[in-house]
């Protein structure tokens, strides 16, 4: 069984990012980059499945600029067997990423594609579902538990009202939610050791241009600190005077 894990290099989710003064982009000076947290969970899940079933082979793939190699190396250090890097500095959108991934899938024939539910930079939450549609594979998004047996995946999914369990036949597309697992910590020597694992560079296979263009970036209106109250009674009085309490 082969698991393909697409990973994206994103702005550190804990970084405080500001727009450029002219609104044409983001001020990224001094900002670190990481594997998208949901993708790190996906890599961790693949590695845990491999620990249960050594026949599993894990391939990570990233589409992006030369720097994405750093995140692919980290995924190899976590336990992935092989990395593919579709190296491009082109502007991408989820639909382009899904098409590029479809091309990789046709070459690699994975049984399972495990993606993050959303990239924490653009917060799109689209790529996996678009990919599943193009491949006409079943999907289970927002997974908090995954079990493979009998040629199918039983996936516990987070829903608006709680949880559901979906059984989907393989091959399939699954996206990870936060509670699926906690990724392991990789000490530096582990990352250096992973340098001997194969990392293959690929070219883009499609020539689509993004169909959603960002015109400007701005800071949202800020809320400012209000009033400190000393007691519960004072709080109730303030809320009543604002009409927030009957």
């Amino acid at each position, binding site marked *: 069984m082969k698991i393909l894990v697409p990973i994206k290099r994103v702005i550190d*989710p804990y970084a*405080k*990012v500001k727009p450029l003064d002219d609104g044409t982009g983001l001020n990224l000076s001094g900002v670190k980059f990481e594997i998208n947290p949901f993708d790190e969970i996906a890599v961790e899940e693949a590695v845990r499945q491999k620990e249960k079933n050594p026949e599993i082979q894990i391939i990570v793939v990233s589409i992006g600029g030369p720097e994405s190699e750093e995140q692919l190396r980290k995924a190899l250090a976590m336990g992935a067997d092989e990395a593919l890097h579709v190296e491009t500095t082109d502007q991408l959108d*989820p*639909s382009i990423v899904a098409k590029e991934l479809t091309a990789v899938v046709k070459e690699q024939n994975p049984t399972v594609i495990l993606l993050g539910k*959303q990239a*924490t*930079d653009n*917060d*799109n*939450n*689209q790529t*996996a*579902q*678009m990919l*599943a*549609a193009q491949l006409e594979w*079943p*999907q289970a*998004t*927002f997974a*908090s538990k995954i079990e493979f047996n009998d040629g199918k995946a039983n996936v516990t999914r*987070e*829903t*608006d*009202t*709680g*949880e*559901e*369990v*979906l*059984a*989907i*036949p393989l091959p399939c597309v699954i996206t990870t939610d*936060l509670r699926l697992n906690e990724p392991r910590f990789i000490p530096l020597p582990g990352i250096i050791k992973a340098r001997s694992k194969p990392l293959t560079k690929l070219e883009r296979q499609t020539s689509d*241009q*993004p*169909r*959603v263009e*960002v*015109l*400007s*970036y*701005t*800071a*949202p209106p800020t*809320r*400012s600190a*209000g*009033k*400190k*109250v000393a007691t*519960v*009674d004072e*709080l*109730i009085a303030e*809320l009543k005077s*604002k009409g*927030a*309490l009957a």
Partner: protein
Amino acid sequence: MNLLLIAFDSEDAVTCAAFGQSSNHPFDILQLTGLPATNLGAGKVISLDLPSLPPADYFAAALKPIAESYDRVAAVSSMRGKDALPRLAGLLDWPMISDITEIVDEKTFIRPILAGSILTKVQLNHPKAFLTFRPAGFPAPNLAGESSVESVSPGWKGTSKRLSESLSEGGRPDLATAKVVVSGGRPLKDAETFENLVGGLADALGGAVGATRAAVDSGIAANELQVGQTGKIVAPDLYIAAGISGSTQHMAGIKDSKIIVAINIDGDAPIFDIADYGLVADLFDALPELTQKLQK
């Protein structure tokens, strides 16, 4: 420009109509479950009248021929909208814009990125698109007219099988649309304490209950209560945050609340930088006192 709004149930149809009316385009509503909502200003209501919602593969295959004839297809950005809509977008190969908070014109929208720390203005360079939107940005719809109802039974095709499902317990209002939300964080210790203190205050106010990821992760609160970047986005008139530090990811989900109250033992907690009213207090004292005084 014609718009199709996909409503998963009757309550959803009202939120959809809010977006439809704000867009100023003629719109139809496709409603999957529940009594068709015919007084919301839709041209027609396409009623599927299903006993329960189908998994995304069935949904997308069945709705493709209906969606195809519209220029825009939109839904609320709930978990089910996020699951199903991009699959339909993938089948039709249309672009998609998620989490719209404001409509600028028929091609231009505002949406947040990076956990709400940046707003982007985005433009479509394609005639057709899928959209999801956040309810907070769109005022409640005017009740208007009597829409015609068209009952359809699309062809269902898929391979997923639902083995089990938890449904909302009812009793408390829906978190995403509640007028009052009381949320609790990590210090609430255990599920029982959380339910007593946070649930108790919510019930005294007729509100919904929310939680931080830290509270959910430690098993204090149910996962569907998580508010924030990767949970639910809320916009109540009153949001009470108890024992919540105010991380960017949590703030992303509450910024559009009218009044934010923070109760935290640490006077320097970041939540106080955005709260309209801050009470520096131990929540184990403050929540019961507040509940007791509001019950009277």
